[in-house]
């Protein structure tokens, strides 16, 4: 219910006097040692003297936004100096003027940013955001039940043994992205209502037929573990982790017709008084050696060029993993869901939600 009020202005920076930084991030998204400490963060503090308060406060782009939007609208501190959010949410925050402009001079390591990510449509020139980690949305399956694997979205729909045991993500851009790609739409390109509606119809049919039962956020992992889902549209990094915990039980593939790729990006909210500290942090994590250390732990795609080489030194097998250091062939199959306008976000969101709500 915020009006189209004047955009808030950035808070004055106090980084010189206050060597602190509050960082909100997703769960299990940074390296942790056995004692529960964050080695790279500790190293950062040792190096710069900036104390970092790291909180796993982001569970979902929407709920996080719901929590902080009021403060953002008022230009107030949201309790975090930097936070990692997904592309489309960054796009929305940027549109609303809720983000502070980054001073690239303070981030020399930004030169290591992968070229493909340097210029994105929601943030031309990366003035407001810098990627933290990224990932694919693809298909995974239970290898015990389906030794032959499931290779495409179409197979999810057409395999009778999967009836009622298919899961999809409640994240619209991933689920819809995969379905549209399956229908041959280039989701990064110039598509419109027709393409989207056609995909919605597919999903709607599968849900109402009972083929798809589980539409989940992050909790899809439990469904995979407890057997409610035997195959699902999932995020790549989770599968690596699940396999590590539960014995190599699941296969993952980016479908031939394409999967989505996304990034979570550092942003500095408008009310933060520690932008310079945040920039120092970003700079630190763009050191390929640090990036490799994080990648080795979180198993997501790192946006830092040279990290793969650094990873080779830690663990060659890791460096070969297509899900962490994808090669060009894999990358070619992955598309970025194009940025939606406010109006599109509204209508497409409503259409997608109406399936989730069973209407």
């Amino acid at each position, binding site marked *: 219910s915020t009006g189209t009020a004047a955009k808030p202005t950035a808070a004055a920076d106090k980084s010189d006097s206050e060597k602190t930084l509050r960082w909100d991030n997703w769960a299990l998204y940074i390296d942790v040692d056995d004692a529960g400490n964050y080695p790279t963060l500790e190293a950062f503090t040792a190096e710069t003297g900036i104390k970092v308060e790291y909180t796993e*406060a982001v*569970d979902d782009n929407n709920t996080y936004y719901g929590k902080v939007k009021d403060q953002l609208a008022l230009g107030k501190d949201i309790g975090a100096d930097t936070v990692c959010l997904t592309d489309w949410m960054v796009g929305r925050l940027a549109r609303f003027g809720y983000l502070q402009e980054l001073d690239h001079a303070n981030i020399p390591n930004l030169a290591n940013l992968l070229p493909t990510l340097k210029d994105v449509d929601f943030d031309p020139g990366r003035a407001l955001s810098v990627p933290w980690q990224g990932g694919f949305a693809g298909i995974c399956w239970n290898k015990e039940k389906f030794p032959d694997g499931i290779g495409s979205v179409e197979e999810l729909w057409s395999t009778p043994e999967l009836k009622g045991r298919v899961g999809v993500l409640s994240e619209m851009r991933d689920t819809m992205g995969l379905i549209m790609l399956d229908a041959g739409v280039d989701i990064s390109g110039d598509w419109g209502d027709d393409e989207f509606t056609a995909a919605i119809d597919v999903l709607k049919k599968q849900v109402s037929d009972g083929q798809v039962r589980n539409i989940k956020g992050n909790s899809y992992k439990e469904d995979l573990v407890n057997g409610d889902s035997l195959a699902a549209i999932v995020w790549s990094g989770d599968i690596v982790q699940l396999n590590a915990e539960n014995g190599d039980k699941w296969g993952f593939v980016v479908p031939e017709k394409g999967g989505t790729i996304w990034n979570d990006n550092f942003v500095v909210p408008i009310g933060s008084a520690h932008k310079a500290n945040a920039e120092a942090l970003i700079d630190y994590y763009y050191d390929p050696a640090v990036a490799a250390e994080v990648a080795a732990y979180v198993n997501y795609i790192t946006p830092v060029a040279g990290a793969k080489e650094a990873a080779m030194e830690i663990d060659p097998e890791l460096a070969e993993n297509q899900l962490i250091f994808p090669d060009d062939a894999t990358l070619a199959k992955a598309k970025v869901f194009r940025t939606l306008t406010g109006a599109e976000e509204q209508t497409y969101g409503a259409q997608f939600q109406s399936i989730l709500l069973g209407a």
Partner: protein
Amino acid sequence: MIPIAYTFVFSFNDSLKSNITWRGFTLDKWLNVCAVQNGAVCEAFGNSLLIGAVSTVLATTLGTMIAIALVRYRFKFRAGTSLLLFLPMATPEVVLGAGLAAQFLSLGVPKDMLTIILAHTMFCISFVVVTVKARVAGLDPALEEAGRDLYGSPAQVFARITFPLLLPGILAAALLSFALSFDDFIITNFNSGAVTTFPKYIYISASRGIPAEANVIASAVFILALVIVVTAQVSAAARAKRQARLG
């Protein structure tokens, strides 16, 4: 009962990041509850305790005052007051939460601990009134009159007669309001901003696998409550026995 047992058992699970499959018995989680995620569980738990305590005190005070007024005095808008008290109980939590969230928004109040406390106090008041009201209604007015008759000024009568006699009801109300506040998720979720309470922590972690430490804390609270109640009962029985012996 089954889920409680489940929760309890899985608090011993030697889980890694998520606590879904049984991976073996360990006491580690009990011993190092606060270690995980830099103590996020414990922090959430602490927040919940704090919020519960403060809103309980507020709600109990305000609610008790209303209850006394409702039973003891006759005034205009009695019916209106009763309705106003009943409404929050009749209002689904989503509505309460969403409404309050919108209110804070339009007032420009940032959401934090304070807004949670304000919200919790609001929905607890009604329950306190109902609880204490029953007690006040059961309180023989003759006792207060006897106090006045025996030279007690109004303040003394309240302090020495009314309050001690209402105390069990007030305590019950406080306990209820603490339990409601402690276990509330829906209203909290709408009004918490960046603050995480224990139920909210669980809700958030639900999407990525709840660490066994949450089970530890929940089980501990449960056991603690059980112990407190049982001790209270046993000591009450013992007291009764002692007094019977005196008799």
